[in-house]
C-alpha cells in the first residue's frame, strides 16, 4: 500500500483585506489539479465511516473514486443520488463534525477534504451540465405537497419526485431556497448556485409555487381536501428572537433576519439599483455568537461600516459558530467583545440608537447545554457607542401553519412534534422536518430529516 499522504490540499480564497470589501465568494474552490491531488489521498476504506457520518448518507468513497478516475459525470451521478444540493452542502456543511470527523485519516489529523471535493464536483456540474434532462420516473399517481422550499423541503421534493410521486413545492417568498436565499450571504453561498440546485429539483418534475403563504392562502386541511395525500412541512425557524430589553425598538436596531434578508434576498447591497434600502452607518454591533451573527458582521464590513463588533455573553470556546467562520470574520476585521451582555439601548431625541449599555460576564458551572453558564459581574456596566445593532440571538418556528392547523401538536418552544426517525407528526398524512421540528440548526441536519421523512412518506404512499 502506498504511504499515507497527510497533506490536505488547502482551499484557495480571497485575501481578507480584499474580500472584506466585496460580496464575491470568499473561497474560490479547488482547481482541477487541487481536486485530483486531494481525491488521490482517499484510501477507499472498506468500512465507510464517512458515509455513516453523513446525515443524508452520500456514498463518499464512490464519488471520490470516480473523481480520482477522472469520471466526472459519474461522480456527479453518485453525489446527486443521495444529495440534491451538493453545491450547497459542499459550501456550508460543518464537515468537520460529520464525515470528515470520522474519516480514517482524521486520526492522523488530516481527513480528506470531503466538503471541498463535493463542492468541486457540484461546481463542475454547474459548468458542464452532464446530468442534462432528467428521466422522470413512472408516475405513481400520488400527489404530495411540500410546504417550504428550504433545504428540508427541497430534499423531500427531490426524493419523492425520484420515486415517481407528483410533488408541488409551496414557497411563501418570491424565490425558492429558504434560508439559503434570505439568510446565508452571497460571499458564502452564491445565489446562482442555489438557483441551479432549485432548477435541478424542478427538472425532476417538481412544480414550484412561489408567493404561496400556506396557513393563509390555503390551510393544510384545504391542501388535503385538494387531494394532496401526503404533506411535508419544512417551514423552518423564521421568527426572530429579540432580547426584550429597554430601547429595543429604537431605529437602527435590526433582527439578524431583517438585516440579512435586506442584504441577501432583496440585494440591498446593490441599492439603489435594487429598490430595498439598508442604512449604512459607522459603528455596528452584532449580538450573538452563532453562524448567523458571523454572517451579519461580515455583511456589515462589506456594506462599508467602519467598526464591526460582535458581542457575545460567553467565551470563544462556547461560541456556536463554526470555527472557520469565526476565523474568517476575525481575519476580515470583525472585533470580538466576549463575556459581554447587553442590558439596554440608549437613543437620541430622533429615536435612533446611539449606545448599548453592557455588563461584563463571568463563566460558572456548565448548564443544561453543557456550556459554562455566564453570570453578570456586579458594577461592570459600560456603554458601547453604536449607530446600528443587529440582534442575532436565534429564531423560533414561524407559527403561521401550526396555528392554523388543527391536530398538529407543537412543543412549548413552538416547534412541531415529529417522530425523529420518520418525521411523522400527530396529524395523519402530515410529516415535518428541519428547523420547524428542531429549532434553528444546520442545513444538512434539515436535509437529513428530509431524507428520512421522504422514505416514510414514500412507504405510506405505496401502502395506499
Amino acid at each position, binding site marked *: 500500500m502506498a504511504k499515507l499522504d497527510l497533506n490536505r490540499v488547502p482551499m484557495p480564497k480571497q485575501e481578507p483585506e480584499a474580500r472584506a470589501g466585496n460580496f464575491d465568494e470568499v473561497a474560490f474552490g479547488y482547481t482541477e489539479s487541487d481536486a485530483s491531488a486531494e481525491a488521490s489521498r482517499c484510501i477507499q476504506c472498506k468500512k465507510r465511516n464517512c458515509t455513516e457520518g453523513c446525515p443524508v448518507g452520500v456514498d463518499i468513497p464512490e464519488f471520490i473514486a470516480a473523481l480520482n478516475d477522472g469520471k466526472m459525470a459519474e461522480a456527479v451521478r453518485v453525489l446527486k443520488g443521495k444529495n440534491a444540493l451538493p453545491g450547497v452542502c459542499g459550501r456550508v456543511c460543518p464537515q468537520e463534525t460529520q464525515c470528515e470527523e470520522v474519516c480514517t485519516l482524521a486520526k492522523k489529523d488530516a481527513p480528506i477534504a470531503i466538503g471541498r471535493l463535493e463542492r468541486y464536483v457540484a461546481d463542475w456540474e454547474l459548468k458542464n451540465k452532464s446530468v442534462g434532462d432528467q428521466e422522470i420516473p413512472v408516475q405513481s399517481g400520488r400527489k404530495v405537497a411540500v410546504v417550504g422550499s428550504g433545504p428540508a423541503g427541497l430534499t423531500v421534493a427531490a426524493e419523492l419526485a425520484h420515486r415517481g410521486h407528483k410533488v408541488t413545492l409551496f414557497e411563501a417568498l418570491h424565490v425558492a431556497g429558504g434560508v439559503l436565499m434570505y439568510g446565508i450571504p452571497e460571499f458564502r453561498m452564491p445565489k446562482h448556485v442555489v438557483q441551479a440546485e432549485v432548477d435541478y429539483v424542478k427538472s425532476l418534475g417538481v412544480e414550484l409555487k412561489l408567493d404561496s403563504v400556506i396557513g393563509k*392562502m390555503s390551510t393544510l386541511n384545504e391542501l388535503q381536501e385538494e387531494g394532496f395525500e401526503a404533506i411535508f412541512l419544512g417551514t423552518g425557524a423564521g421568527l426572530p428572537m*429579540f432580547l426584550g430589553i429597554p430601547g429595543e425598538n429604537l431605529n437602527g436596531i435590526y*433582527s439578524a433576519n*431583517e438585516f440579512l*434578508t435586506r442584504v441577501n434576498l432583496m440585494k440591498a447591497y446593490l441599492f439603489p439599483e435594487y429598490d430595498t434600502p*439598508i442604512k449604512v452607518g459607522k459603528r455596528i454591533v452584532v449580538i450573538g455568537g452563532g453562524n448567523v451573527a458571523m454572517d451579519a458582521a461580515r455583511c456589515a464590513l462589506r456594506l462599508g461600516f467602519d467598526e464591526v463588533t460582535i458581542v457575545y455573553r460567553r467565551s470563544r470556546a462556547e461560541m456556536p459558530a463554526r470555527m472557520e467562520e469565526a476565523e474568517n470574520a476575525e481575519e476580515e476585521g470583525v472585533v470580538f467583545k466576549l463575556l459581554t451582555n447587553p442590558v439596554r439601548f440608549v437613543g437620541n431625541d430622533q429615536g435612533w440608537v446611539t449606545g448599548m449599555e453592557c455588563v461584563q460576564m463571568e463563566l460558572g458551572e456548565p448548564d443544561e447545554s453543557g456550556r459554562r453558564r455566564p453570570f453578570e459581574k456586579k458594577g461592570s456596566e459600560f456603554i458601547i457607542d453604536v449607530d446600528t445593532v443587529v440582534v442575532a440571538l436565534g429564531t423560533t418556528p414561524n407559527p403561521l401553519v401550526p396555528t392554523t392547523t388543527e391536530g398538529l401538536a407543537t412543543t412549548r418552544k413552538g416547534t412541531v412534534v415529529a417522530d425523529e426517525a420518520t418525521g411523522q407528526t400527530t396529524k395523519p398524512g402530515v410529516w415535518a422536518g428541519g428547523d420547524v421540528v428542531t429549532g434553528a440548526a444546520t442545513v444538512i441536519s434539515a436535509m437529513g430529516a428530509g431524507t428520512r421523512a421522504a422514505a416514510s412518506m414514500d412507504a405510506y404512499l405505496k401502502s395506499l
Partner: protein
Amino acid sequence: MYRIVTREDLTPAIHLFEVDAPEVARKAQAGQFIVVRVDETGERIPLTIADWDRDKGTVTVVAMEVGKTTRKLATVKQGESIANFAGPLGVPTHIDRYGTVVCVAGGFAIATIVPIARAMKEAGNRVISIMGFRTKDLVFWEDRLRGVSDELIVVTDDGSYGRHGVVTAPLKEMLDDEGRVNRVIAIGPTVMMKFCSLTTQPFRVDTIVSLNPIMVDGTGMCGVCRVSIGGETKFTCVDGPDFDAHLVDWDELMTRQRTYLDEEKVATEHWEHSCGRR
C-alpha cells in the same frame, strides 16, 4: 407574474389595480393585505385589499404614489403584469354585530375601509362613515362608501368639498351624543389614526386602527414591522394589522416609519434619472 386585469386612475396619483390572483381571491377578507413586488429589482411592499371577486379570481388593491416603488407601480398598464402578489396576509378585521360602527378613513385608505364597512353592514350594524381628503380633487369612491353606509360625511382640509375640517370633528360630535357609537374603525395616515384614537379615548369607545409600518417579508420573518401595543412588542404583519388604537405607541410607530427617509429620496432620484420619467 400576476396580470393587471383592470387599471383605473382614481385621482392623478391614486391608482386601482385589479389583479388576476385566484388563490388569493379565494381567501381574501376585509382588513387583510398583500405583499407586492413590481419587478425583479423591486422591494416588497404591503398594500391593503380593497376588494375581491372570488368568481372572477381577482383581487383589487389601491396604491398612492409616494416613493419609488409606488411610482414604478403606477407605470404598469392594464394587461401588463407585476412580479409578485402574495397573500392574503394578516388577520382579517374582526366583524361582529356591535350596534353602531363609525368607519373613519383618510386619503387613499378609503379603499381599505370600503370592504370593512360593507362587512360591518352585512353583519347587521348601523354604519356611519366619515371620509376625509386634503382637497376636492383627491376625492374618490364616495359612491362606493355611501353604498355600504347608512350615513356618510365627507370632509376636506381646505373646505373645497363637503365639510371644512378634519375627520376628528364629526367623530367627536357623534361621540358627544352619548351611547350612540359602539365601535370606531379608523384607517388612514398614522397621524390621523393617532388623533382619532385621542378623540375616542375619553369616551372609552373601542377603536380599531390598521397600522402601516415598514415591512419586508410580511410573513413574520424579519420583525421590522414591530410595534408596541400596551407595552408589548407585536409584529404588525402576523399579529395585525388591526390593533386596539388606545394601546398603540404612536410616537414609536411614527419614528420607525421615518427610518429610510434619506434612502427613499435617493431611490426616487435614481429612478427619475434612469427610466422613470413619464
